[in-house]
C-alpha cells in the first residue's frame, strides 16, 4: 500500500486561508464531503473532535495528524491542508501548526488497517527532511512525491 494512493487529491489544499483549528478542520471536512469520501462533513468533524478531546494530535515541527473513525467515512483516505499562516493547535512542542494531515477512517478500517496506515505516514514524517518538504512543496504533485513510498 502506497500512502500516496490513500491521499484524496480533491481534499488537498496547500494554501488554506484559515485563522484557527476550527476553520482548518471545517475546510478539510468539507473538501472530503464534496469529494464523496465522507457523507457528512459535520458528522465527520464531530468524530474528529471526539478524538481531539482525548489528547494532542500536534506531533511537533508544525504538523498535526487529526483523525476521525466515523460511520460517515465511505472510504478511508487522507486530506492534507497547509495553512498560509501557522495556527494554534495542541502540540507536543508547544509550537503552532501549518500542515494538517487529516485521516478519515471508515469503521471497517479502524483497527489494523488504520494502524498500518498511520505507521506508514509516521515513517515518512520521521524522515528529517519531510517537515521542510511539506512546508515548501509548491503543488499537489510535489506533495504526492513526498508520500510516494
Amino acid at each position, binding site marked *: 500500500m502506497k500512502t500516496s494512493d490513500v491521499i484524496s487529491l480533491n481534499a488537498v489544499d496547500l494554501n488554506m486561508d484559515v485563522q484557527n483549528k476550527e476553520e482548518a478542520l471545517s475546510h478539510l471536512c468539507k473538501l472530503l464531503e464534496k469529494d464523496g469520501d465522507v457523507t457528512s462533513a459535520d458528522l465527520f468533524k464531530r468524530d474528529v473532535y471526539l478524538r481531539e478531546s482525548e489528547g494532542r494530535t500536534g506531533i511537533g515541527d508544525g504538523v498535526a*495528524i487529526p483523525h476521525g473513525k466515523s460511520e460517515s467515512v465511505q472510504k478511508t483516505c487522507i486530506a492534507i491542508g497547509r495553512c498560509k499562516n501557522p495556527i494554534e493547535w495542541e502540540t507536543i512542542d508547544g509550537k503552532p501548526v501549518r500542515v494538517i494531515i487529516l485521516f478519515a477512517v471508515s469503521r471497517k478500517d479502524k483497527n489494523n488497517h488504520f494502524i*498500518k496506515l*498511520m*505507521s506508514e505516514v*509516521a515513517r515518512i514524517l*520521521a524522515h528529517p527532511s519531510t517537515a521542510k518538504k511539506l512546508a515548501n512543496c509548491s503543488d499537489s504533485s510535489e506533495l504526492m512525491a513526498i508520500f510516494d513510498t
Partner: protein
Amino acid sequence: MKQSKFTIQNAEGLHSRPASDFCTEATKYGCKVTLTKEGDDNEYDGKSILMVMCLGACKGDEITIQTEGPDEEKALESLLNILKNV
C-alpha cells in the same frame, strides 16, 4: 537494563492516543526506552510519538519494552501499566 514482552490486547492496537500516553509517561524517566516488535528488525525510541507510531503495533502483536538507565525498573513497570490499560 530491564525488559519485558507484551502482547497488544486492544482491538485498535497501539494507536495515536495510547502511543501518546506511553510517550508522555516514558519521558518522565531518565532512562532510555526502546520498543521492538516481533518480525521487525528496527528499534523505536519509546519517548518519540512518531517512533511509537512507526512501530505499527496491532492487536496480537508481541512487542518488547526495554528500559536502560536511571529508574529503569520503575519506568518499565509504569509503562507496562499504561499498555495494560489501553
